[in-house]
């Protein structure tokens, strides 16, 4: 047996090929991840994709069937939750209904057998820092959603764990609160240097918060990288489709030339940059994406990729105007027009569109 690769002490978290099955259902299928010190990691994916199970494996609430989990370079795969250097925040906060705010914020320190005076002092500090000191004697039932969220966060952070695991931590909050809370959490993570592993199905959360975004689907990681990377270069058709504003076009590979793949699609022949990847064999099914704001209306002759589209619907979102267009083949294409431009395409219009070749992203 080959020796396992040496643990990297500078990593807060390392997952090596984690697998977890429930009966005949595979929840996590070979997930590997490296989280350097003090990172904000977002696990993004639809419900049932395995992101929460992965998080629970890190917490020790689930035991993976195979693979290793290392926290701060130490192997903890079989360790119980209470022996791991983590804390967790649950979606509905899981506040203890029978404990006052002060009592449950101090719970973690109490478990560490800290002296009573120190617990009282630290709880006071943390409550002040989270601006909930006036709630110290309240019970969870007397708190608003935003207050509960702060209490849950204070309770998790007080022991200064190496990693904070957050399972849809702001999913239970009102929309109006979410943006503020997101900003606060981001700056809190920066200041504390604690790694956050944040599970969400909301791409806005993931891309605005994460240093590293991990997109999961069907128990596997589809793509991981910096937000800009994932946004601009979706690796698979799933990622492209999951991210808002991508148009996915499918066709057959029809030969490569000068770093460009020719794709024979029902609505035309398009060129897509290979970006150093080997060309797929001729005739194989391929897909690529073009972002909706990258489409060009009535393109000039220098634009090679073009197709004519009929406009179905125009929606105005304030920052941009979204057009839902239909190609001859029936494929739906979105075109987003940013800036306060006057509306130039109306429902019923048949308009020619195109895009610069470098805006096409070929999928694996």
């Amino acid at each position, binding site marked *: 047996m080959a020796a396992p690769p040496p643990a990297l002490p500078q990593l807060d978290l390392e997952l090596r090929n984690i697998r977890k099955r429930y009966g005949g259902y595979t929840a996590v299928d070979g997930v590997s991840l490296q989280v350097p010190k003090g990172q904000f990691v977002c696990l993004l994916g639809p419900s049932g994709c395995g992101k929460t199970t992965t998080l629970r494996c890190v917490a*020790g609430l689930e035991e993976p069937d195979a693979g290793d989990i290392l926290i701060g370079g130490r192997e903890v795969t079989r360790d*119980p939750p209470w022996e791991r250097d983590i804390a*967790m925040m*649950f979606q509905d906060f*899981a506040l203890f209904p029978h404990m006052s705010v002060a009592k449950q914020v101090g719970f*973690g320190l109490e*478990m560490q057998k800290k002296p009573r005076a120190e617990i009282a002092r630290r709880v006071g500090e943390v409550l002040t820092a989270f601006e909930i000191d006036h709630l110290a004697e309240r*019970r969870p039932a*007397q708190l608003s959603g935003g207050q509960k969220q702060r209490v849950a966060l204070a*309770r998790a952070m007080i022991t200064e764990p190496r990693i904070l695991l957050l399972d849809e931590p702001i999913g239970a909050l009102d929309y109006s609160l979410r943006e503020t809370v997101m900003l606060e959490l981001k700056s809190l993570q920066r200041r504390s240097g604690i790694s956050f592993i944040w599970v969400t199905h909301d791409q806005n959360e993931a891309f605005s918060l994460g240093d590293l975004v991990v997109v999961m689907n069907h128990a596997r990681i589809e793509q991981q990288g910096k937000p800009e990377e994932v946004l601009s270069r979706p690796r698979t058709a799933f990622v492209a489709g999951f991210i808002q504003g991508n148009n996915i076009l499918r066709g057959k590979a029809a030969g490569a030339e000068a770093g460009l793949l020719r794709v024979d699609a029902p609505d035309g022949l398009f060129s897509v940059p290979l970006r150093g990847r080997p060309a797929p064999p001729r005739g194989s099914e391929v897909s690529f994406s073009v972002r909706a704001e990258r489409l060009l209306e009535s393109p000039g002759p220098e634009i090679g990729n073009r197709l004519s589209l009929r406009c179905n619907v125009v929606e105005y979102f304030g920052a941009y105007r979204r057009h839902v267009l239909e190609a001859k083949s029936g494929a739906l294409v979105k075109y987003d027009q940013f800036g306060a431009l006057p509306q130039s395409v109306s429902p019923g219009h048949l308009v020619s569109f195109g895009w610069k070749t470098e805006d096409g992203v070929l999928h694996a």
Partner: protein
Amino acid sequence: MLGARGQRPRARLTMHWKTRSRLTSWLLGAVTIGFLLFQWLPMFTMFLLSFAGENGGTTFPMNGVSLHWYRKLWDADLFDDFKPPMLRSFLLALGCSATTVVLSVSAAQAMRGRFLGSGAYFYLLLLGLMAPGILVGFGFAILTRLLGIEGAWNTTAYVVHVSWALPFGFMTMLAVFNRFDPRLEEAALTLGANRITAFRRITWPIILPGVIGTALFGFSLSYDEYARTLFTAGSDGTLPLAIMAQLDRQLTPELYAIGTVTTVMSLVAIFLCTFAFWLRSRALRGRPTP
């Protein structure tokens, strides 16, 4: 048939559905009150007759009003006859209650995670509800005799009583755990509590109201159990056995007085528990903010 709804002739008596629904609720309320009377009136007749005069009998019409039978109960030998069985019944009920709590909480805790045969386990536990008491008691007596064990109120009867109260306690605790959010335990675990600490500090305080209910079941089911005790209590009987024996010998309003006293004791116990519940739920809601 388009428009058929509109063409239907108007009913002579038109009544808004809300009005009808209010009438229905009055009717159901009347039935409920009737049921409650049906449940409590028999006991009330006993309460009344226990306050009969010196020459009062055990049936209506009531002959005078006095505390005579209570005084007699206090003074006379009859009460002395009843004291030991009462003490036995009380101790037996306490023991049954405590055991039922431990077993019910454990059994329901086990049912939280599915295991091989958990379905069979569930039905086997509930079978205790279906089994006719007199047969359970008799069968158990035969079994203990076969094994050469002398029956007694605090050994064989105790075991049978626990087997009777357990299904009730088990069902209660199942319902309690159904509403219990397991993430509370998980939160405690991720905060550094081991399993025992998490149970002690989080699970136990939250399920406590259900545990008190289970304890009440264990107590009251054992305290008035006759059929299962008859063959298993051995020579020293419990209160229900003593009362039945006395009923066989001679029926006087004294027995009504005993019944009233024990019922009042039960009601006081229930009242105290309810009060404790109320205090606790108020504590969970928290004190009203100034």
